[in-house]
């Protein structure tokens, strides 16, 4: 028997209101509960469970980004919304004419060429992955694909960046209820593989990192790039349009996913959140995609007037969002179910996968239903857009919810939070330099963050759709680590899309510079392959923002987002935040993850035939370094393998960086650059090694020639992780031309490609590294030889 309960909140005390919020897993705070109480007091009745759930979903951190829109008090004054003050402001000020849709739809859209635009979106799926890595990470991909489909684009690339605890973490030390990092990693990789591969979307860019801070709370960032013909983007539902639900059936899966995401993970999460697990079915999503594209392209204009993804918050969010300016009416009993027995509120907020909502003008309903029927994809009209700005839900004729859209979407009280961050001080390392650094180099190469991820990459199909020109593994044996991937999306054009990312939570000891580093890394990875006119996306994974220090770090990070975007002229086009990434150790202690920001970069290249890879190509070619090497080893891998964090993390000289990047692109366009690789984790040492073994040639470099800010230790020059640096192989005989283009920037010739398959690093007083490159490759590959 299906029931709709009235939840008695009128006349309840503050304590009772909070208990209701807890008991129903609403994750609403007292102020919000009181606001709801006030709204219903005016109506003179109590809310139904459906109504209360609707408000909780819409007001969840996941859906409205309370923290990013709230007021923050800092010691330096009040910030009126982080998003508006920093991130969106940068985009506004840059005002790039090629930015088509920014921050207002499921994905950001930028121009590609005269006929096409490209869309990109990156999502986090951390909490579901902690509970079920296979389903959680897989549906992370499935969800972000739907985000791109939700602007009418066809997915052409999947990206994934993952973070876990250390692979050798002892079982006994795991927080209660947490899975072992190795199991999480294997499960996540399998989930992403099975979703992307089965849908036929190539996974060709990403990264995997490890840090003790993620033991109880792994990170999964899933991204997607799509392509859409110009003038096919539409988001304009009209009163009278039908609401069409297409794709998977609705079940109990994923109930309370978004409100759960605003609660910390505890050992109890496993039990209370069993509904929060989502199970993916890529085959169904593929049918949705095929139907959607046919509906888009059947005539000059799409058959729908709007489309959106049913993701976090389910129908409640999707329909609510689409109809917030006009109003909707939905008959919940029309929603196709996986099995009987769902309560109306469960139908309304279920996060069952592979569902999308379309607004369809009545005259097109018949035609669009036929299209989905042909694709063997279920499609059902479940209601209509009204025009009265109300949200009305019925179940078998009975009204189970009747709310004003204005209240649901604008009624949420703005949060006011306090932020205060004090810079931590870690011991500075005091170990001496060594005469031979070969073993240190090997230790860094073997470290899981740096080591070859071929085991993962080879499971993902990065070739399907036949658009991948520059692939994730490069070089003569196709096993060197590429900086970015390049796609050639249109058959009769050489123009390409360049996709890369930047992230390094080890620098979180200084959040401002961590974020500048991530922006610099994402952009320089893009530049490595020839990418330009770059747009970026931000994805925050942070601890509980109700803690002053966590929020203080977030403020620092957002300031850097603004400064970085303006300096590089790279607008943010989309973003997402996942807060409350915190877990209980089981001993009553709460641990936040390290503040983590992923920057994804999407650029274009006018001719993919000019794209550059990272492997050295020809004996005798000179090797140059671009950028200055500084005493910036805080959070570096070199300190890490010696058990230190240090303090001075890499900074970015914003003026110099942009100028040198532009010059390098110019040199690439003139065909002077044979190989290019960025210096990041492990600095010059790792970059040189990777370039050499990817080309299976030798390399000899001289540290005394490296431009530094007065560095006198070999180890620091070799392993410093200063930003904005590249190693480039230039065509022999083209040195003068290259130097002319680079004039006015910091750069120097530091060595050459040799034929003896040996990496030789000559330090300030003689050789400090000498090893066969194939041996170095073996070491680098040994970690994930699973």
């Amino acid at each position, binding site marked *: 028997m299906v029931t709709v309960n009235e939840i008695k909140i009128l006349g309840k005390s503050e304590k009772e209101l909070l208990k209701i919020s807890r008991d129903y897993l609403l994750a609403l705070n007292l102020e919000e509960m009181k606001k709801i109480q006030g709204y219903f007091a005016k109506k003179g009745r109590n809310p139904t469970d459906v109504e209360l759930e609707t408000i909780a979903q819409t007001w969840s951190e996941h859906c409205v980004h309370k923290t990013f829109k709230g007021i923050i008090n800092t010691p330096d004054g009040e910030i009126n919304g982080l998003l508006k003050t920093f991130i969106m402001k940068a985009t506004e000020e840059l005002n790039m004419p090629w930015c088509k849709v920014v921050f207002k739809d499921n994905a950001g859209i930028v121009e590609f060429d005269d006929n096409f635009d490209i869309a990109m979106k990156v999502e986090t799926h951390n909490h579901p992955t902690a*509970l*079920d890595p*296979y*389903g959680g990470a897989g549906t992370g991909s499935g969800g972000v694909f739907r985000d791109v489909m939700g602007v009418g684009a066809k997915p052409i690339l999947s990206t994934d960046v993952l973070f876990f605890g250390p692979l050798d973490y002892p*079982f006994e030390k795991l927080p209660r209820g947490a899975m*072992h990092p*190795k*199991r999480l990693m294997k499960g996540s990789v399998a989930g992403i593989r099975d979703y992307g591969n089965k849908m036929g979307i190539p996974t060709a860019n990403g990264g995997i990192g490890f840090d003790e801070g993620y033991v109880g709370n792994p990170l999964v960032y899933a991204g997607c790039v799509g392509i859409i013909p110009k003038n096919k983007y539409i988001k304009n539902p009209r009163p009278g349009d039908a609401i069409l639900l297409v794709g998977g059936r609705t*079940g*109990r*899966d994923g109930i309370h996913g978004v409100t759960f995401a605003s609660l910390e993970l505890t050992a109890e999460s*496993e039990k209370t959140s*069993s509904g929060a*697990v989502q*199970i*993916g*079915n*890529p*085959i169904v999503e593929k049918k949705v995609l095929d139907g959607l594209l046919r509906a888009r392209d059947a005539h000059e204009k799409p058959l729908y007037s709007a489309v959106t993804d049913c993701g976090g918050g389910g129908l409640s969010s999707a329909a609510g969002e689409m109809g917030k300016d006009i109003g909707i009416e939905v008959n919940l009993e029309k929603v196709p179910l*996986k*099995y009987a027995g769902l309560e109306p509120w469960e139908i309304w907020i279920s996060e*069952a*996968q592979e569902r999308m909502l379309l607004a369809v003008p009545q005259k097109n309903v018949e035609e669009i239903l036929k299209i989905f029927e042909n694709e063997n994809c279920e499609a059902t009209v479940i209601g209509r857009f009204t025009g009265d700005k109300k949200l009305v839900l019925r179940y078998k004729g009975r009204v189970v919810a009747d709310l004003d859209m204005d209240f649901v979407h604008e009624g949420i009280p703005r949060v006011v939070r306090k932020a205060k961050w004090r810079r931590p001080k870690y011991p500075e390392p005091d170990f001496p330099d060594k005469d031979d650094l070969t073993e240190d180099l090997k230790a860094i190469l073997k470290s899981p963050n740096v080591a070859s991820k071929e085991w993962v990459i080879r499971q993902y199909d990065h070739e399907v759709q036949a658009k991948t020109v520059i692939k994730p593994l490069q070089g003569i044996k196709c096993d060197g680590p590429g900086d970015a991937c390049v796609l050639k999306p249109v058959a009769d054009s050489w123009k390409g899309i360049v996709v890369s990312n930047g992230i390094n939570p080890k620098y979180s000891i200084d959040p401002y510079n961590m974020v500048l580093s991530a922006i610099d890394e994402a952009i320089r990875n893009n530049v490595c392959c020839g990418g330009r006119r770059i747009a970026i996306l931000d994805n925050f994974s942070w601890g509980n923002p109700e803690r002053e220090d966590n929020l203080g770090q977030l403020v620092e990070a957002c300031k850097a987002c603004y400064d970085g975007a303006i300096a590089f002229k790279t607008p943010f086009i989309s973003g997402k935040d996942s807060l409350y990434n915190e877990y209980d150790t089981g001993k009553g202690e709460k641990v936040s993850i390290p503040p983590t920001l992923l920057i994804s970069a999407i650029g274009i290249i006018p001719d993919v035939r000019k794209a550059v890879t990272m492997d050295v190509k020809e004996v005798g070619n000179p090797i140059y370094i671009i950028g200055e090497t500084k005493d910036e080893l805080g959070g570096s891998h070199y300190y890490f393998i010696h058990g230190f964090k240090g303090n001075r993390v890499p900074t970015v000289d914003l003026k110099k960086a942009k100028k040198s990047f532009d010059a390098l692109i110019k040199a690439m366009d003139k065909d002077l650059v044979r190989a290019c690789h960025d210096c990041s984790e492990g600095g010059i040492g790792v970059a040189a090694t990777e370039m050499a073994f990817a080309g299976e040639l030798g390399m000899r470099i001289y540290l005394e020639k490296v431009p530094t800010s007065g560095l006198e230790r070999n180890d620091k020059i070799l392993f410093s992780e200063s930003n904005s640096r590249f190693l480039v192989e230039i065509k022999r005989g083209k040195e003068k031309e290259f130097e002319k283009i680079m004039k006015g920037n910091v750069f120097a010739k530091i060595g050459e490609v040799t034929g003896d398959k040996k990496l030789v690093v000559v330090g300030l007083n003689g050789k400090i590294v000498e090893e066969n490159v194939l041996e170095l490759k073996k070491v680098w590959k040994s970690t994930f030889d*699973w």
Partner: protein
Amino acid sequence: MAWIVEVGYKKEATDPVGFLTKKEIEDLGIEGVKDVRTINTYIIDGDISEDDVKKICEELLSDSQIQHFGYSDENVKKLITEHGFPEAWLVEVTFKPGVTDAVGLSTLNAIEIMGIDGVRNVSTGEKYLIFGDVSEEDVEKICKRILANELIQNYSYRKIGGK
């Protein structure tokens, strides 16, 4: 009525999932496992003839080069005797009720495409045969840490073969 179909690997064929599972068990620090073999289980619920079941097994669910199939427990028996081990732990992992069984749904869809009517539902499960000298305590650990996610799956195990 429901047909229980089991598909396992032939003795001479590599069982990739079993191979990796054995490695993961060793990673847990559990010694004594000689081999792990896997069996896919399909419960086909509906009114279909044995001929149809056989056709589904041959054309859809198994690859005759490397796999064999059977209805009910005969496949398990075959695997144990074939591998020359006197006994094994048999672990069964199935989805909890209400959890979407994507492979089951696809199988049902494929059976319909084959032109066989009358199947109402297909649900899937995994069986693992763990050969070697392993204690019950270790099997429990293997289930919890490798084979099943208790949030969405049920597991059970028993010793089979022997005297």
